[in-house]
């Protein structure tokens, strides 16, 4: 028999709880490396001075008051979808359908804006839009949820498919309601009467959205951390068997949470159509349903931290767009940079959850290191 024992070069073990400032220090370090890597890549591709590149990134978000408002608006929309998918994620139910749920909410809002004027006064149209959007989003999430609860259908794949069904449904109505005829797009709805347009607070076009999402963010934080529902979600997420044992009706929690998730996605669609764009296209949600997954996960499903992570992603996205226009690159360069940054941040999570023990030189079996 071979009695030699070989100690591997290193082994990995799980880390205990870390104080929050340490975890954020690690994430910050990951982010720093990511930014350096992005600077290097951009310099290699464009031959520009990296400092100029960073200045351009910063300029993309904070260059002018208008840019700051657009930044805030984008953060609010991304945050809204992220907040929406978070309760489901806490339950370990991977709702990748934020895109479709928001889109269908937007479709419902647009339908009200197009079909109801002339029959109802403006305030009633807006009320109908709110109800219809939230209901549509909730319905879109409820379908996978019911199957998940009853037959344990894989919700990741189901919600993913629902996105494309929603996209095609919107494409269908874009042709049905097209104006002008033959353009295949809806154009600005009610541009003369402004029926169904959300009121503007003062001269700030985006302020209403931002305030609504901020309120949702706080409510979601309270809901998840201080309510009975939030507790049930956490238990189901940690262990379904434990949840059943303590008498939580798991099926009900799944459907209820997904309904909430979908309704909030519907809210995002409502805000996009009713308040921001006043039109509907198949790309109005702009991939936020997918980006939201990353926002939520990076913030460890904590609504308050999500403000920071969604800021980060929007900031980088807009910065990358600015680099693209400034240095004559195509806009997809932004996607590459976002991808690189995400890889670094995803990688840095490892060092938060695990630690590496290297083999000590000269260490032998039996000597025992403590």
């Amino acid at each position, binding site marked *: 028999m071979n009695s030699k024992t070989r100690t591997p070069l290193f082994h990995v073990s799980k880390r205990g709880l870390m104080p929050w400032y340490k975890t954020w220090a690690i994430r910050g370090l990951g982010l720093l490396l990511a930014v350096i890597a992005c600077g290097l890549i951009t310099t290699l591709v464009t031959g520009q001075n990296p400092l100029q590149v960073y200045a351009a990134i910063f300029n993309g978000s904070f260059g002018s008051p208008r840019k700051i408002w657009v930044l805030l608006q984008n953060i609010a929309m991304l945050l809204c979808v992220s907040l929406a998918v978070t309760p489901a994620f806490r339950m370990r139910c991977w709702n990748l359908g934020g895109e479709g749920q928001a889109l269908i909410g937007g479709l419902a809002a647009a339908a009200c804006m197009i079909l109801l004027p002339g029959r109802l006064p403006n305030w009633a149209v807006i009320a109908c839009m709110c109800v219809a959007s939230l209901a549509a989003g909730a319905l879109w999430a409820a379908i996978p949820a019911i199957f998940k609860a009853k037959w344990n259908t894989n919700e990741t794949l189901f919600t993913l498919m629902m996105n494309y069904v929603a996209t095609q449904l919107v494409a269908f109505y874009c042709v049905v309601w097209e104006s002008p005829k033959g353009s295949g797009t809806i154009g600005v709805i009610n541009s003369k009467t402004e029926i169904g347009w959300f009121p503007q607070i003062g001269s700030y076009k985006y302020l209403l959205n931002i305030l609504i999402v901020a309120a949702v963010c706080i409510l979601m934080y309270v809901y998840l951390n201080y309510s009975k529902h939030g507790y049930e979600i956490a238990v189901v997420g940690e262990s379904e068997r434990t949840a059943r044992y303590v008498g939580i009706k798991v099926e009900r929690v799944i459907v209820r949470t997904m309904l909430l998730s979908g309704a909030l996605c519907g809210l995002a669609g409502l805000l996009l159509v009713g308040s921001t764009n006043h039109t509907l296209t198949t790309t109005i949600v702009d991939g936020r349903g*997918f980006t939201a997954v990353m926002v939520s996960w990076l913030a460890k499903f904590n609504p308050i931290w999500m403000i920071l992570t969604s800021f980060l992603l929007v900031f980088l996205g807009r910065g990358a767009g600015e680099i693209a226009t400034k240095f004559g690159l195509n806009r997809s360069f*932004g996607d590459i940079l976002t991808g690189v940054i995400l890889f670094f941040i995803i990688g840095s999570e490892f060092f938060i959850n695990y630690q590496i023990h290297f083999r000590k030189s000269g260490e032998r079996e039996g000597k025992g290191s403590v």
Partner: protein
Amino acid sequence: MFDFISFIPRAVVQGIPLLLGSTGETLTEKSGNLNLGIPGIMYVGGISGVIGSFFYEQSVETVQPFAAIAIPLACCILGSLLMGLLYCFLTVTLRANQNVTGLALTTFGVGFGNFFGGSLIKLSGSSLPSVILSATSNCFRRSLPAAEKLGAFGKLFLSYGFLAYVAVIIALVSAWVINRTRVGLHLRAVGENPNTADAAGINVSRYKYVATCTGAVIAGLGGLYYVMDYASGVWTNDAFGDRGWLAIALVIFTVWRPNVGVLASFLFGGLYIVHMYIPSGMNLAVKELYKMAPYVVTTIVLVLTSMRNKRENQPPASLGLPYFREER
């Protein structure tokens, strides 16, 4: 009358990228990795091949058929392999969340494809928003000379470029490997229950790495086939569209069986283009509803398999979960 003789070959060429993508994803998922980066990987595979053949076509006067095929093929394999390695490093070695990593990979891959596609368009100085590589494409599209003489039979079975046949062979071989060999048995064990597999002495990480990287390369070939054969060597940004997601849908539709995937991918290819063949008169809107078909069908299959709850039709049990030996 519905024109099957012209419809079926078009459905097949539509289906081949999906077949390659879904075979790759099936292999990956069998090892317990849910790689949502497949759409990105297919973009990278396509653009890598385009980059390779672009510079080859620029550097020589006349294109040698062998090099014209070998260079893009090698570039494509290298590009998609690197993507697969990146995914594995993050999810297997660093045990990151697979959904998040996959989505990031898709963002990156699609951006990568469109960025370098755009740069090549600028380099080639063409007035059209696309890169045209017809010489290379002709090598890829060359079919058997007998195809045209044999009438309908030739059109239905022999009119495709060599990659289409390679795709079918890869799918059949993968099915055989997964279900009939020891390696396949180990692979399935890793995907179903990595703890047990580890205890049985199977190197879980190695299986996950090899399966995912092989899967990524196969999926990348799907991107290459799309550009070189289906699109006749024309790269246009975003032209590949959502086919990557359709490939993932196909994995579910075939209940994780690449051999079923051969016919299913042709069916999906058909569903993808059926809106062009169904007479809808002036009503363009209805066409958009037909495009929904592949996704609706997939959803129905997903629901039915979960309702019937047959054990052999279920997703791999540990799909999407990272494996850490010390956590039991």
